């Protein structure tokens, strides 16, 4: 037998260069846009990025860029990168990752400079942009982490919106009744788990399609919280809605760290929920990719039958993960009423649950990726407000569309490939 070369099929097959021109064309188009907008039509003024706030301990000087000059330089770099991509496509059939990444970063910066150079005041505050974004980012992160937990174990969670809303409502109600913010926080986690319980029960036990259950649960929670809001929360005593006056979780700035420009106000002047978020992102990442717990969850989400054959109870794993996801999203919901604002209002989550879903996909089902995507969406959302403050000629509605449009591009594969856990959305029925 030794004569026979035990050749393996995949190694024998020659690789043929299949050139995809999509990336070079895409980059080329954007480079062209850059040349026209940033260089030729670039505004003459300067773009000022304010980094420190006036009462910060360390004052970092403002970053001032001459808009047009910067636009010219940036568009030249972009053109060069597009050419590089074209050459790479021609020679190696694949555009190196650093090219597209650099392109994206340079384009975004140049776009910002161009937009800000074109505004009336020609300056924005970076700390305001990022710190303000946390208001949206925090619940988004919790929502998307809930999604990570569920989808990594194979259950699609469209009900994030409902979990956030249930958390926000319950936190407000319980914190008002008990006059204890932590009781509200705990109750919010429980409320999120209740929604999760329905999701799990119907999709795992009764094998109802997960997307249907999720969609319907959102309607259910919206109706239920709306109804109870009308019936309970509006009850007023001496003009005060006593069931909608939640005690707040205090901000706990960390000494020194909170003074770091931009990062300080963003990350280290938060309530306990904010710190919990930071811990959770890292812990979930570590848990998923470095521990037994995570290995098993990922196995269940990728190939439930394989997990079953090595003695992992697939449906129990899913059940527990969905429940945990509910608790996480519930806490994210509590952020609305215990930190962000002082009372519950109907449908106050306003579709953030769906953006969280988008962040999850954008972040490629990875806790850290999802958190960064949530930050991106949070910043995009705040940018609209910041830019209208700076007097931008760009209509706010277009900025409002940004996260949604980005998400469509992401799921269409224009912004990197994302691969969902293979068994996500598929019920596991033994046998």
């Amino acid at each position, binding site marked *: 037998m030794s004569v026979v070369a035990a050749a393996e099929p995949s190694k024998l097959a020659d690789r043929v260069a299949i050139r995809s021109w999509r990336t070079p064309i895409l980059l080329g188009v954007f480079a062209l846009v850059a040349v026209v907008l940033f260089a030729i039509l670039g505004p003459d003024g300067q773009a000022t990025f304010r980094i420190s706030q006036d009462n910060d301990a360390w004052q970092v000087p403002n970053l001032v860029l001459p808009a047009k000059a910067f636009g010219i330089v940036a568009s030249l770099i972009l053109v060069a990168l597009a050419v590089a991509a074209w050459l790479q496509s021609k020679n190696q059939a694949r555009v190196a990752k650093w090219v597209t990444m650099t392109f994206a970063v340079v384009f975004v910066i140049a776009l910002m400079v161009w937009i800000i150079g074109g505004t009336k005041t020609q300056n924005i505050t970076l700390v305001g942009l990022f710190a303000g974004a946390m208001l949206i980012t925090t619940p988004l992160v919790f929502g998307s982490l809930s999604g990570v937990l569920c989808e990594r174990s194979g259950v699609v969670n469209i009900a994030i919106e409902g979990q956030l809303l249930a958390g926000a409502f319950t936190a407000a109600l319980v914190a008002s009744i008990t006059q204890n913010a932590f009781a509200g926080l705990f109750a919010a986690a429980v409320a999120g788990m209740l929604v999760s319980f329905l999701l799990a029960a119907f999709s795992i036990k*009764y094998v109802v399609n997960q997307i249907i259950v999720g969609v319907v649960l959102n309607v259910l929670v919206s109706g239920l919280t709306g109804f*109870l809001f009308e019936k309970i929360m509006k009850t007023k005593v001496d003009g005060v809605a006593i069931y909608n006056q939640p005690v707040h979780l205090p901000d706990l700035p960390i000494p020194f760290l909170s003074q770091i420009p931009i990062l300080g106000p963003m990350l280290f002047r938060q309530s306990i929920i904010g710190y919990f978020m930071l811990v959770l992102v890292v812990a979930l990442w570590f848990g998923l990719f470095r521990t037994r717990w995570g290995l098993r969850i990922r196995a269940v989400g990728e190939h439930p039958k394989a997990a079953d054959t090595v003695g992992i109870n697939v449906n129990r794993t899913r059940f527990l993960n969905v429940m945990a996801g509910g608790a996480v999203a519930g806490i994210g919901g509590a952020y609305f009423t215990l930190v962000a604002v002082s009372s519950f209002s109907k449908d106050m989550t306003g579709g953030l649950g769906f953006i969280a879903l988008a962040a999850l996909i954008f972040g490629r089902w990875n806790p850290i990726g999802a958190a960064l995507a949530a930050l991106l969406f949070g910043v995009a959302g705040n940018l609209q407000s910041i830019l209208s403050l700076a007097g931008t000629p760009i209509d706010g509605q277009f900025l409002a569309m940004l996260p949604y*449009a980005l998400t469509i591009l992401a799921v269409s594969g224009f912004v990197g490939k994302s691969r969902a856990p293979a068994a996500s959305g598929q019920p596991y029925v033994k046998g």
Partner: protein
Amino acid sequence: MSETPSIPAPTPAPTPAPTPDSKDVKDAEGTRVIREIMSGNAIISVLAVLVALVIGGILIAITDPRVTAASGYFFADPGATFSAIWASVSEAYGALWRGATYDPTARTWQGQLGIFETLTFATPLILAGLAVTLAFRAGLFNIGAQGQIIMGATFAGVVGFQMHLPPVIHLLAVILAGAIGGAIWAGIAGFLKARTGAHEVIVTIMLNYIAVSFVLYLLKNQLKAPGSTNPISPQMDANAMLPLLLGPNFRVNAGLILAILAVIAVAWLLNRSTLGFEYRAIGANPKAARTAGMIVSRGYITVMLISGALAGLAGVTQIAGTEKSLDSEIAGSIGFDAITVALLGRSKPWGTFFAALLFGAFKAGGTSMAVNADVSIDIVAVVQSLIVLFIAAPPLIRSMFRIKAVRPEGAKA
């Protein structure tokens, strides 16, 4: 494990059969869903509605101050609690029923005939429900009826209030424009699904939001009524309106006829036509459909176009039937209700029709309930979503009723 998991593999995994269609062929999850949705029976549906109403009734009762007051002295006079519960629930559901059908207490004879309000509400629900149903049968979840209604209404509106055409022609142009508007919006999702494998659920959800922003932008600029600063369009031309069926006293309009025609058309399409055969095959087993020579990607695109056109027609019945002018809330919650309508109708055209009638009745009755029994209309959303949950899980309903049958004594003790 050595690499950081956040960095995806540099090359897409070599899959054995990578063909243009392999992406859309991959998720045949629609298959099982369609089967499970369609395989229930009428009894389950009736019981689901019943159980949902009971749970709704419990919510109404426990949040009624009269009930809570009476329950305070429950042990002294339990009868008071029960009569309070009865009063509370019967008042609410009584108002619901009267509002949806016939209300002898209403002041005018027009007002008494709530049934026509039911039909008015049902009209866009039928069309949007059909949109969801049709896509569903081809294996696609069209969660985007909301956005498609908005775009349909926008297109219809542009023709309806910015163009001035002779009677009949104008209305036909409005209807056509609405269908096109919806079709374009849904077509985007269909196209991306077919070409890139982008999941239509995510895309249509995102398109819903984009549609709202887009329309708000137009309403602040190009489509704003002259002389007004409100984000609301001018009124439609009289020629562009769907005629009222029963005169000016009732809002029920020719949109209902349009909707019924659409039901017949979709029923024919799905059950009798080769195109429908193709859609059903794609929905049930895209790989087999592809092997049998059907072009799955084209199927996805065309079915979304038709589905979007139906949703666009729902937008037409809104703007040219009841609302007259365009604003960003033109779709109300029709697009989302349409999903539950389609599920309740078991993704069959006539099922969708009757489900839409039921939801129209809930809507008409819900208003009456809110006004006359002071029960928030939100309870309707609760009841509707419970109905769908129960219908989607027949074993739950079955086991619930078995429990009751098996242990009546236990319940007493």
